[in-house]
């Protein structure tokens, strides 16, 4: 992880927490593997413990990775064949019920692993943006002023940059994933809702944006690959949908300015 991101994170969560993250990751792996049979448990702890070392310079990513492994543990437990020893009928029934429940939960978590991997960083980012906006903007402005929307836009644009850098540098991708674009909406919408809560019309715009954006985001995560036509602007190649959201934000800003003045 680059120094500037590490510095920001250290400032936000504290240096002690930064050093504690790998321990927390190991604890999560240790706890998650408890559901596995003993032989697999030891293998998994050793394997994932070794690979967690790869995240030493990307500790937040390592923590997210360890959380995502919980789904794999549950899936592996659910798909490991069970061998029933001779038991009473009641014991066999209880064991089957337990394994059935684990099977259902395991497959549910397994399916959600993909979503968690994509959503957790984005939700964290949106929460940070929301928290920053509340902490930075004074209460009177936070309630009525257009300054909140302006600061939201600035913060959201910055968060998109951070998210893309996170994918390019921290996760070492050659380019951001297509879903990155939709992540922007997650970062934008909480601020838009908060800012527009003083005006019913703007609030409606925020709600519609949120619903559409979540739909697009989930669709992209599920592989439907929703996209609109690209269009070329002075700023470069932007997706039409992003342009639409920007236009809605601009409209919201102008509306609030007019209403307040």
């Amino acid at each position: 992880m680059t120094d500037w991101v590490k510095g920001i994170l250290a400032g936000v969560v504290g240096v002690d927490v930064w050093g504690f993250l790998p321990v927390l990751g190991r604890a999560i792996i240790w706890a998650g593997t408890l559901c596995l049979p003993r032989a697999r448990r030891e293998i998994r702890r050793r394997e994932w413990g070794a690979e967690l070392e790869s995240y030493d310079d990307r500790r937040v990513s390592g923590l997210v990775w360890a959380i995502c492994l919980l789904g794999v543990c549950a899936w592996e437990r659910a798909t490991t064949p069970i061998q029933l020893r001779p038991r009473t009928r009641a014991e066999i029934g209880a064991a089957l019920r337990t394994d059935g429940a684990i099977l259902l939960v395991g497959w549910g978590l397994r399916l959600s692993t993909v979503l968690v991997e994509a959503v957790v960083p984005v939700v964290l980012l949106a929460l940070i943006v929301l928290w920053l906006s509340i902490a930075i903007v004074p209460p009177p402005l936070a309630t009525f002023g257009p300054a909140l929307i302006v600061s939201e836009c600035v913060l959201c644009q910055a968060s998109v940059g951070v998210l893309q850098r996170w994918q390019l540098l921290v996760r070492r991708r050659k380019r951001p994933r297509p879903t990155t674009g939709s992540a922007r909406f997650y970062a934008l919408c909480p601020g838009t809702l908060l800012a527009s809560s003083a005006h019913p019309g703007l609030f409606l715009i925020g709600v519609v944006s949120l619903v559409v954006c979540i739909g697009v985001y989930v669709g992209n995560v599920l592989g439907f690959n929703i996209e609109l036509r690209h269009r070329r602007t002075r700023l470069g190649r932007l997706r039409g949908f992003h342009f639409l959201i920007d236009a809605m934000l601009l409209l919201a800003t102008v509306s609030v300015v007019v209403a307040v003045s």
Partner: protein
Amino acid sequence: VTDNVVAIFSLMLEEPGRSWYGLELAEAGEIGSATIYAALTRMERAGLLRASWETGTPSQLGRPQRRLYTLTPEGIRAGGEALANYRPRVRVSPSPGILPGLVPSGGSA
């Protein structure tokens, strides 16, 4: 055969004798860094992969031993067939490129 399995096959078949560890495959194949273990487990259970521990002690390596995955002869054969018959289910699209400085040079209009 899922997309992840095909991605793993395509990477490993570039050098069939080479051993890979999980995160290395995930990053090279752009596969979810957690979901890859489910795919590797399925392939190992099917006899397509063989797992072993890295040779050398942790003190020699300077880190813990990694668990390495290698294609078995059956895996090489099945991987070849899978790649030959593979038809992508989702069309890969270029990234959105929101920021001008981050627009990939190879992106399409």
